[in-house]
Structures are given as structure tokens and as C-alpha cells.
């Protein structure tokens, strides 16, 4: 369960968002500039709200009334960025292992094998990120976040930087992730089609405000092209 009730002023832009989601995959939907990334950065702990509360499974991560702010590295929240952000000086294997090392978790070959199978990245392990395609990079980024054993996975337009062909290549992996990994996810996108395939609950944002909350029926109808 993810509970968010926050306000944040960013220059001229003000963001107010209140929602509570039990869903397996919560979609943050809205046009660019609606405040989706700011909101997800607050959940991750990279941005501090001016006012409000963020809680996961009853554990409060931010509460401005008590001045509580759990820093990002102690939240155990996986974050997949639009631009992958793989570490360029580490190969794929070391990138995948990074979260485990930083959280001082024991080596777990079984879960590593499961994740590399799930994402079909077993053949890429010895490569550097510079030698990966955009789609491969994004799959490695997904694996890296999963292997840090997060309690919540944030995905910020993970398909946003890919062309149509690559999107079709990655989407099935995200569906598998949702059905097999058992980690609640927050999925950010401005693409209603993508949302419909993946999410169970939708938070619709416009100009920093939540304008609708519910199942995928709140999404605008898409005209397929």
C-alpha cells in the first residue's frame, strides 16, 4: 500500500497530490509537465516535499510535521529511469550486482539467474553499457533495480526513450515482471495504450493536480493508428 499526500513548489510550478493505492501496478498518467517525475522523485526520496506525508506499507518515509525524511539510500525503493543510467565504468554483471553489494545482501545466484532469465540479459553480462542497444540498456536497468530487492519499484517512462519497435520489444518483459516478480510498481507514462496493458490503478495528473483516480477506465480512449 502506497500513501501519498504531498505539496511541492518548484519555481512557478506547484504540485499537490493525494492518493492511496493498493494496486499491484499504480500508473501515474499525464502529459509532460504534469508533475509525474517530481512526484516519483519524492517517493524515491530524491526530492523532499514542502509539506505532507509519504508512506509505504504503513512505514512513513516522509512526514513534514515531524521533520521525517528517510534518505533515498535507506528506502529500499528500486528506480528505473527513462535514461537507464547504467554505470558506464562497470560491465553489465557489475551493474546488476551493485544494489546487492550496496545493501550488503548475501550473494544469491538463484535470484540472479531468475532475473537474467526473466529479462533475457544472460548473454550481455560481460559487456559495458556503451556496447548495448537502448532496449538492452533498459532491460539491464530493470534487472539492476530488481536485484537490489526493493519493496517498491518505480518506473519513470522506461519506454520513453525507445522507438516503437523497441517499445514492443520491452513491453512483454514489463508484463512478465508484473505477473512474476511480485513487487508492487509505480509506472509513469504519458501513453494511455502502455498504461492499459500494464497498470491496475491510475492516478491521472494535470498541471500538478490529481484530476482522476481509479481503474484503467479513467484513461482517455486511444485511437489506434
Amino acid at each position, binding site marked *: 500500500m502506497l500513501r501519498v499526500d504531498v505539496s511541492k513548489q518548484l519555481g512557478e510550478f506547484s504540485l499537490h497530490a493525494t492518493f492511496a493505492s493498493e494496486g499491484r501496478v499504480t500508473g501515474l498518467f499525464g502529459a509532460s509537465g504534469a508533475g509525474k517525475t517530481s512526484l516519483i522523485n519524492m517517493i*524515491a526520496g*530524491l526530492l523532499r516535499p514542502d509539506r505532507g506525508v509519504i508512506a509505504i506499507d504503513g512505514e512513513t518515509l516522509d512526514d513534514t510535521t515531524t521533520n521525517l525524511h528517510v534518505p533515498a*539510500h535507506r528506502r529500499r525503493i528500486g*528506480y528505473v529511469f527513462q535514461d537507464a543510467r547504467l554505470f558506464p565504468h562497470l560491465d553489465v554483471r557489475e551493474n546488476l550486482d*551493485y544494489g546487492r553489494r550496496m545493501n550488503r545482501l548475501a550473494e544469491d545466484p538463484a535470484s540472479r539467474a531468475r532475473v537474467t532469465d526473466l529479462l533475457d540479459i544472460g548473454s550481455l553480462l560481460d559487456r*559495458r553499457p556503451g556496447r548495448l542497444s537502448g532496449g538492452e540498456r533498459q532491460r539491464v536497468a530493470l534487472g539492476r533495480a530488481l536485484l*537490489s530487492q526493493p519493496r517498491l519499484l518505480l518506473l519513470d517512462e522506461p519506454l520513453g526513450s525507445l522507438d516503437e519497435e523497441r517499445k514492443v520489444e520491452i513491453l512483454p518483459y514489463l508484463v512478465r515482471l508484473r505477473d512474476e516478480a511480485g513487487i508492487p510498481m509505480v509506472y509513469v507514462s504519458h501513453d494511455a495504450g502502455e498504461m492499459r496493458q500494464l497498470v491496475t490503478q491510475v492516478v491521472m495528473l494535470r498541471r500538478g493536480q490529481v484530476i482522476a483516480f481509479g481503474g484503467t477506465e479513467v484513461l482517455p480512449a486511444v485511437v489506434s493508428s
Partner: protein
Amino acid sequence: MFDISPTEWTAIQLSLRVATVATLVATPLGIAVAWLLARRDFWGKSVADALIHLPLVLPPVVTGYLLLLTFGRRGLVGAWLADHLGIVFAFRWTGAALACGIMSFPLLVRPIRLSIEAVDRRLEQAAGALGAEPWRVFLTITFPLALPGVLAGMVLGFAKAIGEFGATITFVSNIPGETQTISSAIYSLIQTPDGDTAALRLVVVSTIIAMSALVASEWFARRATQRLHGN
């Protein structure tokens, strides 16, 4: 012509020792200062920045004199260090290392700072989100990516330290075997009748050292670019 005399060897070895010690001691401090300037905003940052660069613009003789006033036997810090820790800088090779360290510090810090600034902060954020505490983000992400810049800074600082003259001779004088570096040896030789050949030999030696440092620094800079592109 290429018969290097024992006195000249002593000067060359002393220069190498002074520059090596100065660089090795200044580097950790330089990395810390470069990181602060690149990644933190704090009160008095521009003053701190100016202070670090001061030895670059002050006449070296002024820096040397200030060192003498501060770290000399009767200087504020120098007297305390000598009485309590038994560390003496005045007229010792350690003083030469201190002078060289301070004179080369701005040159050491600058490439490190630039290379830390060039590290994508979004990678640091990603490392934090994966559970890395800030100091581990620095050790596993920022530092390895900035390493070529750190090495370039060390090379430049070393080259500057090898050639330092004004502040060193003012602070620790020109004592053969103790504080006479290549530069001060050349200075003495050109004031001696028939010292020209010997001076020329040392000029060649210092040119070779300086050139090697510049080539090495250039090589590290190229490595930095490659590393940041992830190949």
C-alpha cells in the same frame, strides 16, 4: 656534457623526493577540496576558491615569505609544531615539500574538480536509489569516473612541484643536499663561472621531466573521455 656530477644527482633526487612527497600528501586533500567545490554550496565558497588559487597569482617570493612567517621556527604554526610534535619545516627538505605542495595545489585541484563536475549527477542519484550511502556513492561511482582527472591533476601538480623555485628558495634557502632542488641548483650554477655546462645539463633534465608530465597528463585526459562514454 652528459656526465652528471654527484652534486647534480643529489639535486635531481631531492627534487624528485620533494615533488613526490608534496604530490602524495596534497592529493587526498586536493580530492576533498575539489569535491567540496564541485558538489557542495557553502558559505564563503568563493573566498575558499580564491584562497586556493592565491599561490598562482601571488609573487612566489611573497608566498615563500608568508610560509617563513607562519611555518618558520618562530612562526605561529612552526613554533608550535616544533615544540609539540618535533616537526620542523624551516631550512629542511620537508619545508621545500610544503612550499611545493602549496604552490602546486591550485594546479592539482583544478583538473580533479573539473572531472568531478563532469560526472553525471544522475548516476550518483541512481547509485543512491540502489542503496549506496553518500560516501559509497563517492567511492564506487564518482571517484572511479573522475580518476583520470585525479591522475592528470597529480601529474600537473608534480610537474609544478619539480619546477618550483621562488617560494622554496625564500622559505628554505638553497642548501646543497638538504634544500637544493634542480631549480635552485641551476640558479647557483649560472651565477658561478664555468657553471654553464652543468646548468645546461640540469635544464635538459628538467625539460624532460616537464615534457613527460605534460604527455602523461594529456594521455589521462583522453582516457577520461573514453571512460565516460562507457567503452
